[in-house]
């Protein structure tokens, strides 16, 4: 009784090196931060007005060998011709400005949709895991039904019914992603509710609902939060996809999917730049979010 137990240092034995994963994770972090920053300030730092055409239509981007010189000129603020880094599109809009302004639509929609579906999905998943079996079955079968519906059709129907607004798109995507969170949270809830501390709380006379919200849910959130990051990436892709099929945001809002759709016709004529740069932006962003999520998952598992 007299002796005092000295706490063991947490994590002292967990110093396992993961150089490769760390490199990817850092890249992911960078992309995630960049996209969030651009979502806020993108349209303000764009060199040209994203809605006002320039005098040059379908101006190609500067040749690679001129880029260093042009960069130098713009850094030193020397007098020069106007530069369109990514060229201009068929309406004469500067593509670079639109690419860095687009996160305000794409990332904001993806973030909003995922926040809605994370909240809804984890609460429904919790209910499905702890409530009476028939409630759980009802929630799960409804999720199946929602997931079984083709996304683009759902999107187009909803957009037709409710109009092309950001709110509608967020709702469409939220509907699409909620079942993922329901499923993830439920399976984790089923594991967590078997744990000793849940029974211990029960033995202390706590109510089931209180235990579910304070003990089970917080411990069951990790997989959903990791999924959150990965799903944002895919939601960005989906937002662009919806615009591409005409169920997304209204042109001329700067948005990657719209830009690709607008440039798609010109690719066959050799004018590749209107589609390529927004396409690259999507790819890098989706990959960045996936790498970020992957890194989080490794950290969680370690």
């Amino acid at each position: 009784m007299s002796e005092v137990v000295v706490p063991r240092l947490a994590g002292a034995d967990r110093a396992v090196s993961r150089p490769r994963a760390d490199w990817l994770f850092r890249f992911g972090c960078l992309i995630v931060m960049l996209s969030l920053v651009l979502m806020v300030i993108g349209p303000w730092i764009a060199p040209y007005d994203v809605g006002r055409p320039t005098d040059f239509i379908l101006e190609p981007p500067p040749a690679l060998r001129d880029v260093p010189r042009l960069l130098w000129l713009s850094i030193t603020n020397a007098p020069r011709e106007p530069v369109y880094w990514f060229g201009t599109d068929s309406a004469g809009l500067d593509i670079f400005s639109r690419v860095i302004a687009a996160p305000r639509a794409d990332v904001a929609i993806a973030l909003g949709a995922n926040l809605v579906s994370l909240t809804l999905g984890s609460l429904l998943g919790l209910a499905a895991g702890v409530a009476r079996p028939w409630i759980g079955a009802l929630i799960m079968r409804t999720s199946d039904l929602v997931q079984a519906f083709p996304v683009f059709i759902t999107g187009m129907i909803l957009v037709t019914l409710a109009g092309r607004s950001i709110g509608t798109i967020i709702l469409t995507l939220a509907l699409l992603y909620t079942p993922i969170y329901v499923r993830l949270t439920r399976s984790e809830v089923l594991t967590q509710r078997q744990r000793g501390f849940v029974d211990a709380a029960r033995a202390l006379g706590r109510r089931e609902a209180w235990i579910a919200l304070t003990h089970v849910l917080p411990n069951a959130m990790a997989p959903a939060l990791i999924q959150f990051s990965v799903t944002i990436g895919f939601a960005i892709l989906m937002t662009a996809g919806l615009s591409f099929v005409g169920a997304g945001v209204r042109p001329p809002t700067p948005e990657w999917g719209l830009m690709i759709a607008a440039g798609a016709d010109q690719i066959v004529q050799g004018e590749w730049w209107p589609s390529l740069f927004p396409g690259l932006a999507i790819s890098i962003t989706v990959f960045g979010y996936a790498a970020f999520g992957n890194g989080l998952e490794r950290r969680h598992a370690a």
Partner: protein
Amino acid sequence: MQPEAAPPALLSVRDLTVAYGGRTAVQAVNLDIAPGEIVGLTGDSGSGKSTLGLALLGLARPPGRILAGEVRLSGADLLTLSEPQRRSLRGREVGLIVQNPRASLSPLHMIGEQIGAVLKAHLPLDGAAADARAVDLLRNLGLNDPERRAKAYPHEISGGMAQRVLIAMALGAGPRLLVADEPTSGLDVTIQAQFLDELWKTARDVGSAVLLMTQDLGIIANYCDRVLVMQDGAIVADDVTKRFFAAPRDVYSRTLLSLERVAPPVAPGDAAIVLEARGLSKSFRLRDGRKVLQAVDHADFVIGRGETLGLVGESGSGKTTVGRCLLRLIEPDAGEVLFEGRDMGRATPAELRRLRKRIQIVFQDPLDALDPRWTIRDIINEALERPDAARVSELLGFVGLDPAVAKLKPRALSAGAQQRVSIARAIAAEPALIVLDEPTSALTPLARVEIVRLLRDLQARLGSSYLFISHDLSTVEHLSHNVAVMYLGQIVEIGTREQIFRSPRHPYAKALLAAHLAPDPSRRRVDRIEDAKLAGEIPSPIDLPRGCYLAGRCPEAVASCRTQLQPLRTLRDGRQIRCTPVAERDGAKTDPVAA
């Protein structure tokens, strides 16, 4: 049996040092093992036992490396040999048995093939001869029908047989030294005793020396000629078994054996009844919906105020289910639980919540029982009516923890300290009864001793009653006033600690207690006549037959045992037993408790 004069050592280790990165796990160890000697190596978790064991074979688990020293096996230094030379010595000269027999066998190959492969690697045998030798080995280890067993895959044989296969593989090439690293951890006591008997007998027959690494001093007292104790990578004690147990010289062993010298708790005189279970039953319907697993079958027992009832039995005997049924964490199918005179089964949800606080539970896995996201302060506050920092500090002091740990998360504590937090939370609710469900099984030997002391101390101070559930008979003996023995969901014998531990009467209780390896070399199991031995292994608790569940294995079984349900009957000395032949011989009162 014991080699008295010192013959030239079979294995001689000098200044052996193994390190993991910058951390030294084995520090300049010297040891000698004589031919045919059985040496026990013990020490707390992390003392470097396993690392030393592997290093004796010239192995180190990465990132560990053998830095210095020599390992001379009949003269040749293993560490200076080339890897192919070393490999040919392993198996032929040194055998290894690791933990977990089932996981050590390849699921894709027949066991005869696996034994044969080991033989072929070390002996000049062709395929057919190796297979024949494998069958011989299995026969020598007492497997019936060894030809058929040799063609079985690991999943087709029982756990007991898997261990014999492992012994066959380790001893097949006739090594002169066998290194066994915790070969029985996680096994039930009767299987453990069977395995060690087998190992002991085979080693003696072929004259192999054995280095048996274990945390269980009971195993060492019963099977080893000599004892080595490791602490922080160094050997701190080296003595002949009898002398070691008479007066251990190192602090570690003294602490472990200190409980043996403390008188077991004295039962409080005519205690008021706190809890009474009558006909408590619980069965689980299996996935396919037709088969039924009878986890608890008409359990009757009484726990008095300030009293500890020890509940013992092997895995699958339903001990844990009994504990959970008391709090209705699992809803019992039938029977009553009268707690302080009130029927838990009829309580409304609100009443149940109030009643539950009066019965607390401490679980086996200490980390699992604490919410990892909460601080220790929050965890203990949860048991209090309202948050109270002073009371939290007081409770932490009660269980021997520094109040400063209150701001930590459970993960930052050692397993023993985590279990203390669980106990602090339990006593915070001021319960009349604490269900202790294997609270010491996940702990190191040292932490186990401390928790047992703490529990006894708390009972003396607070007067709470315990239901102590464990498969560890030593711990039960140190804590219990009364003991109930469970077999396949039934309580087969219940009586005072002295009755059960000194003279068990039920055939199963006898076998269980005979398999108990007490840390006392004067009561070695290998010296006793095996009168209590049961045939075979525990049957599956699914779809049990009518009649006595033990009938098929019992040496005392008569024809009626197979057909008649055995009632729990009170013997003349007051204990209750579920065995009609024994009860009738005793001339028990003819008042069978309703079965």
